[in-house]
């Protein structure tokens, strides 16, 4: 899970699942959290980067922007029946644009554990840690 630029984690929630990205930049923290989102469904290592899509979101509140980003991603996963595991995020002022690479769900190979309903405001935190790294986290309803 640990990489040079950042890492992702899950944290427990009684009924659902918490996702967390920690990285040296805000953008990478968002990208790592997106990998954590995929990891709720399947092992991200099983996802192949066959197709690239673009996601945009806008909100002056960084925390709401984070949830909007995840929900835009959840929408694309649902509509396209796809899983993604590589993300590049750019944030300029209150706007976010991202690319997500992935492939169509293959039930046998991905063994998808659960569908994601939506990202929530529960345990929602986007902030700079004391060591200078960025944290982006929230609970996801499954």
């Amino acid at each position, binding site marked *: 899970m640990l990489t040079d630029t950042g890492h992702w984690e*899950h944290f*427990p*929630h*009684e*009924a*659902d*699942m918490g996702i967390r990205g920690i990285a040296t930049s805000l953008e990478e923290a968002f990208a790592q959290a997106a990998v954590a989102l995929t990891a*709720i*469904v399947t092992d991200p290592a099983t996802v192949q980067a066959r197709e690239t899509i673009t996601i945009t979101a806008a909100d002056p509140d960084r925390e*709401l922007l984070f*949830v*909007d980003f995840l*929900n835009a991603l*959840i*929408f694309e996963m*649902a*509509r396209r*029946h796809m899983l993604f595991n590589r993300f590049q995020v750019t944030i300029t002022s209150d706007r976010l644009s991202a690319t997500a690479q992935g492939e*169509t*769900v293959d*039930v046998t190979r991905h*063994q*998808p*554990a*659960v*569908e994601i*309903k*939506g*990202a*929530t*405001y*529960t345990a*929602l935190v986007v902030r700079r840690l004391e060591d200078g790294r960025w944290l982006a986290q929230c*609970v996801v*309803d*499954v």
Partner: protein
Amino acid sequence: MDRAQFSQDAENTWRIQPFGKMRVPAILYASPSLIDAMDQKVFEQITNVASLPGIVKAAYAMPDAHWGYGFPIGGVAAFDPDAGGVISAGGVGFDISCGVRTLHTGLKRDQILPVQRRLADTLYTTIPAGLGSTGPLRLNSKEMDAMLQGGARWAVEQGYGRPEDLQYVEEHGCMSGARPEEVSQHAKQRQHDEMGTLGSGNHYLEVQHVAEIFAPDVAGVFGIELGDILISIHCGSRGLGHQIGTEFLKSMAVSAPDYGITLPDRELACAPIRSPLGERYLGAMRAGINCALANRQIITHLARQAVAEVLPNADLHLLYDVSHNTCKVEEHAVDGAPRRLFVHRKGATRAYGPGHPELPAAFRAAGQPVLIGGTMGTESYVLVGTTESEQRSFSSACHGAGRAMSRHQATRQWRGRELVDQLATRGILIRSPSLRGIAEEAPGAYKDVSAVVDASHQAGLARKVARLEPMIVVKG
């Protein structure tokens, strides 16, 4: 939770007197051991709900209450639009009108045993389940709007089921006041190939046998006998409902200050019932209810097809269909006077008592069937609404077991393959596309549904009628 935080009104009835910003008390129905096991978040969330504008009488938590989004799951709260009452997207939940539908089959357990494996396989190949699965129909935008307006009634008109099914569905299968134009294009796009799909997580289709009867009189009225085979379907409004919930949660959270509402928790986002946003959400949420009702109706049709393939003499007809994530306008007596209230039930089942005019004629004298889903390895229950629950909880009862541990913890404790094999030795056949999904849904990851049902029974919210044990489980 520490029981010292409550005063006790009666056995299994716990009260939190208003403090801070609470406008009304909070009342929890649970046994001492269920209270002990509940997360402290339930206390926090139910007292937050009790502080919302226009709340009437009390905020209630059912015996299966656990940490939810704004509202606890297992939360019930009624609001008066004439007293500045609010409607909350979190108080309905992401899976709008998720619920349980139970069907009679006219079969007995010994008729299933010789064909159990074939029936399991046929149901599994006929009912789309799990992530990425698609349903039997694709809706264009005109058909989508008709479905959102018509619910299960629309599905029957399209040939999915029989007209007589509708009298055994809440709202007779069609929620009035739906406004499909308030449902976003994204929500409709998410649904375009998902009609007639089960979904995943705790959603399922089960073939069950009646293992125990507690109230023979009511069981007789519901047409249930020992050894009968029933089929239960647990699912909701699929991607469409999730998208409506997601979008309105944000709109309500962002607009709350404009309406003078201070949110103790962003997730408790709400809007006045009498506001443009409140009315838009109501219209969209009701369309979401219709989507769930249509979805369960189409799955019923698919189940009939699958069963007919294996057991041509079976006749599947509805026992009842309940929704446990809703906000509905209902008349309730408050201090002796009838009031028209907006009742939120988030993970709680409506449980009308005997004589309620909305019940089908056949059940009116007995009360409403209250269908409680368990886990794939334990049991489910049929209860009946009581007269007392009108005063105790705006005619509401529990909805299921509720999780006892996180998904992550469950996958560390169980392996999907082992669970499938263990359950098979107990005569329960599991069919699912995902072994990891099975591990996450391990029976041991849930609370004891029997304890939840017993607490509901003892608190007078609903009375036990029958216990059902699974024989076949199709899971997403």
